[in-house]
């Protein structure tokens, strides 16, 4: 106990990191399931269905398969860098999530440490950009160290692409920073509280719609997703930078890509959609019970599905899911618990919308050509985000000059 009271930051951070790592890893695994399911339904297929009810155990099966596959290292590769690259990619992608606040800072546990954010830095946004700007090393080094044609081309392409779009990504965010006047995530979020005309939340997306569209496009390109997935364009480059990777090292790249997706979705939520704030005015008291009610609704639907459609072992599995969501939903309705789940609930809901958007885009749009990609980034996206920045700055400068 003495140790805890002497080093509250250290102990609290270790606990938070452990819990967050577990949650994020599970979420990443189920994100693959989510993506396969949604893309399948867009293409009129069922997607994963046989491992567990609705394919719910598919991520587990995939993970086990990756673990038991043979780990091949090409003899001509640069050993050290070849092994370093996937670790670097995954470690950087996961570190970035440490700066994300999932709930309000006034909820605390041991010795006043904030529950919902690992590191509530004064310049959280800068640190996050610093970490993500290094993410390109994982891809570039993987391409170089494999010492073969396609990975090298993929690595080069991705470095060029990530450098190009990072400029627009960073510039599109500056407008929001001018509005908030802070680099701290919680302050940026709290600045978006309140409502216009008592119903429209004062989110940055409304005054900064141009910045938001630029951010969204640049973010998709930055995470190397369709329609900007040139680094791993199957038809041209086999699998791009990770062609030579197998077994768990491949899985690490895969997880890093999904972790980056989660990070940019979280960032979009924080900067443009009010983070953990509820979209409804505070005077609507019933919203306190929304998380619990929502989870219980999911539970009731699962119960219906269990009874009508599932057979055999799938029935048992879905019963577990049903009971879990009903029990957790009921817990969230308790007056002692309800205030704590508000922030994370709204945050997760908004992030899920963005993740769905990602998958939706993947299921809908064809891939860009490489020259189209470059000219789009430099000749359209960059000028537009620059103009947005200049416009926002002018707006505030004129405002200050009038009111002093």
């Amino acid at each position, binding site marked *: 106990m003495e140790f805890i009271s002497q080093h509250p930051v250290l102990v609290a951070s270790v606990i938070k990191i452990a819990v967050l790592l577990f949650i994020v890893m599970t979420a990443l695994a189920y994100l693959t399931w989510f993506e396969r399911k949604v893309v399948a339904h867009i293409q009129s297929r069922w997607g994963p269905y046989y491992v567990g009810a609705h394919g719910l155990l598919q991520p587990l099966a995939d993970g086990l398969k990756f673990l038991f596959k043979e780990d091949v290292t090409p003899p001509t590769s640069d050993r050290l860098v070849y092994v370093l690259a996937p670790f670097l990619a995954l470690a950087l992608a996961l570190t970035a999530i440490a700066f994300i606040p999932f709930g309000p800072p006034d909820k605390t546990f041991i010795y006043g440490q904030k529950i919902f954010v690992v590191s509530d830095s004064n*310049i959280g946004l*800068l640190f996050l950009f610093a970490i993500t*700007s290094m993410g390109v*090393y994982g891809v570039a080094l993987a391409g170089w160290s494999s010492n073969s044609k396609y990975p090298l081309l993929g*690595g*080069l392409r991705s470095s060029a692409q990530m450098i190009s779009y990072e400029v627009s990504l960073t510039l599109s965010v500056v407008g929001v920073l001018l509005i908030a006047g802070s680099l701290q995530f919680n302050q940026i979020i709290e600045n978006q509280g309140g409502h216009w005309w008592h119903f429209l939340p004062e989110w940055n997306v409304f005054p900064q719609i141009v910045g938001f569209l630029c951010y969204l496009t640049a973010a998709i390109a930055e995470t190397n997703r369709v329609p900007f997935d040139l680094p791993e364009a199957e038809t041209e480059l086999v699998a791009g930078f990770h062609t030579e990777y197998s077994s768990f090292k491949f899985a690490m790249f895969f997880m890093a890509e999904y972790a980056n997706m989660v990070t940019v979705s979280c960032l979009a939520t924080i900067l443009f959609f009010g983070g953990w704030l509820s979209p409804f005015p505070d005077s609507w008291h019933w919203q306190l019970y929304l998380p619990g009610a929502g989870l219980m609704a999911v539970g009731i639907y699962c119960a219906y599905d269990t009874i009508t459609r599932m057979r055999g072992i799938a029935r048992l599995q879905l019963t577990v899911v049903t009971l879990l969501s009903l029990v957790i939903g009921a817990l969230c309705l308790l007056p002692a618990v309800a205030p704590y789940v508000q922030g994370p609930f709204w945050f997760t809901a908004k992030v899920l919308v963005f993740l769905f958007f990602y998958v939706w885009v993947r299921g809908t749009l064809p891939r860009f050509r490489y020259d189209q990609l470059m000219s789009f980034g430099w000749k359209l996206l960059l000028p537009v985000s620059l103009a947005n920045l200049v416009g926002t700055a002018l707006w505030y400068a004129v405002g200050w000059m009038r009111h002093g």
Partner: protein
Amino acid sequence: MNLPFILFFICALLAVLGAVLLIIAREPIHAALSLILVMIALAVLYLLLGAEFIAAVQILVYAGAIMVLFVTVIMVLNAEAEERTDFSKIAKWVGLPLGFVLLFAIAHWLYRAHVGPVVASGAGIPAHALSTWDLSTELFRHYLFPFEATSFLILIAVLGAMILARRDE
């Protein structure tokens, strides 16, 4: 033995290790990676001094932008491993001793400046990290002219680089 003290020595060691590796490494990519290690270790040292903004910018600009460019250029040119020539005699007999003399001189001055106790007690760490607000007030009020002059200089350098690169057309 407090946490900043331990962190300081770990990062200082890493920075020195990275700097030595940078010179020893024969593959250009390995040298670039060692330099990145130095940059990150330095960023953590800045953080220990309470300079959050400088630390973040150190990683963002040096490790995130400049070194990425270095690595990309090395990949594009597909630079081969360095070939080692015999050490020059002057470097061996004059350079090495002089290097040690310099190291000794620096250590001596640091010892006389009593930096060690300050670092060890953690007293060098300011109570409040300097906020971006303070930093920007200084930069855009007191140092506005040097700031603008520097940005103009960089603009000239950018234009110069473009002219040099497109001279053949």
